[in-house]
């Protein structure tokens, strides 16, 4: 599959990779350069591969409360919330953003590209008995992100909108170029200030090029999936299939903030209540390598000479100029300062557990 912006990526000379069935830009100028642009100026991302699903109907809120870990009943209009779909065992089916659009009596769910079909099927099965409509709008809408400290200025200059007063994790409908059907949210996956823009697919190229052309002088560059991964790793934001999956609960991944155990019953709640009482069997930690070799997803982690867990994500951190990683380890080995060893292709390399996130933007 190709997003409506595929042609722009090819014209820009991007290196294209297959990402869960989508031909997506891995990088344009280079991962490290794109990473620094987002940390210091601004970057432009095509996220049109991500699943976007509208939920409507009289039982919308009751249905969402059944499938989400956050309380849809109390969400105010214009709010975005990070949430999970869970299995009955409390493990993660997917992580997603929920946009509560009370004014139009609908909610927008933004799910992982890799899980879109699974999520649609899963929601469909759990919609029995609810008067609710689940509508996949992924191909009709494009999703473009502007991320970085100069995002507000970038949008002002390139699209003539002034989103500086928007609160983090809110959204608004606003006219963009010649479309009235755009949604703008102050959200992102980079650890920087930034915005995500939903526009009709046929307007995607116009918006993309307007931002790119009018903001290049501010140092804005297009950014591919490679830097998206280094940025989110530094910010310790979880990636489905690595930090979270159907063998990991949000409590084990340290994502309790997105789980409201005291809200009306939801799928997976009982299992999480039990786990909260009994304790978790693994914890997500971050670590620095002492040396220069780079830990990667799936490598074994050792503590006190025994295997304690598995690396979920590892990369070279462009902001810290060193290799970093996250791992699931046994709770007794999860304290900050604990010495770990990572088995990198047969050689155990020393590492130390550090607080997460690795990177925090300056206020």
């Amino acid at each position, binding site marked *: 599959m190709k997003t409506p912006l595929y042609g722009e990526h090819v014209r820009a000379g991007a290196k*294209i990779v*297959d990402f869960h069935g989508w031909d997506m830009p*891995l990088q344009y100028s280079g991962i490290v350069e794109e990473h620094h642009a987002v940390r210091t100026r601004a970057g432009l991302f095509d996220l049109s591969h991500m699943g976007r699903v509208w939920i409507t109907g009289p039982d919308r809120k009751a249905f969402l409360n059944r499938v989400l870990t956050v309380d849809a009943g109390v969400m105010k209009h214009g709010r975005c919330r990070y949430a999970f779909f869970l299995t009955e065992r409390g493990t993660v089916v997917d992580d997603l953003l929920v946009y509560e659009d009370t004014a139009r009596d609908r909610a927008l769910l933004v799910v992982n590209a890799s899980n879109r079909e699974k999520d649609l099927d899963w929601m469909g099965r759990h919609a029995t008995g609810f008067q609710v409509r689940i509508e996949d709008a992924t191909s009709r809408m494009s999703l473009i992100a502007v991320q970085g400290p100069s995002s507000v200025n970038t949008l002002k200059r390139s699209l003539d909108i002034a989103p500086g007063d928007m609160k983090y994790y809110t959204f608004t409908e606003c006219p963009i170029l010649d479309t009235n059907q755009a949604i703008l949210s102050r959200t992102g996956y980079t650890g920087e200030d930034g915005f995500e823009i939903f526009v009709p697919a046929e307007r995607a190229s116009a918006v993309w090029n307007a931002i790119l052309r009018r903001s290049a002088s501010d140092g804005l560059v297009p950014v591919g*999936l490679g830097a998206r991964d280094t940025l989110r790793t530094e910010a310790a934001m979880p990636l489905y299939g690595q930090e979270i999956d159907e063998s990991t609960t949000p409590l084990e991944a340290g994502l309790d903030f997105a789980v409201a155990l005291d809200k009306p019953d939801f799928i997976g709640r009982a299992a999480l209540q039990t786990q909260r009482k009994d304790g978790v069997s693994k914890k997500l930690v971050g670590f620095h390598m002492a040396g220069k070799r780079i830990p990667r997803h799936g490598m074994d982690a050792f503590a006190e000479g025994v295997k304690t867990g598995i690396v979920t994500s590892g*990369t*070279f951190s462009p902001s810290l100029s060193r290799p970093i990683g996250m791992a699931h380890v046994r709770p007794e080995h999860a304290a900050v300062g604990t010495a770990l060893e990572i088995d990198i292709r047969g050689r155990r390399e020393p590492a130390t557990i550090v607080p997460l996130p690795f990177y925090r933007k300056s206020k």
Partner: protein
Amino acid sequence: MIRPSEAKYSETHEWVIVSKKGEATIGITDYAVKQLSDIVHLELPKAGESLEQGTPFGEVESVKTVADLVSPVNGKIIAVNKEVLENPDILHEEPYEDGWLIKVKLAEKSELDSLMNAKEYQEFIESAEEAVEEKEDGPSQKGSKDDDEDIDEDDFV
């Protein structure tokens, strides 16, 4: 980038230039550097160690992936490039000059005829890229440095 005509090239994208005294200088090609992109670390052996043709002698780590360095010759290492170890960025600028990796005293049985000349190497790259495009119906990162660790789609969100 113009590839040196006096060099020989391997299918795993190393180059080797042999001096009259039988000393070989070994590095990786501009094509390998471009495919790996964002090279941040090199693991190289020490002087005095022996190399075996076709066998890994080190590794090159980029932000996204890692690849083995495979020796194009048999011999004993006589020098390691400390500058490129400290600053792998040199590889992006000068893979055939300041970006050399190791110098090797060739063993008697070193067989360089199995390696490609610059023209043959260019043809090798082109046919490899065409094969990838046919297979994947589009340009791709895959088939870059070696098949040790392809780009993993699960690395990204």
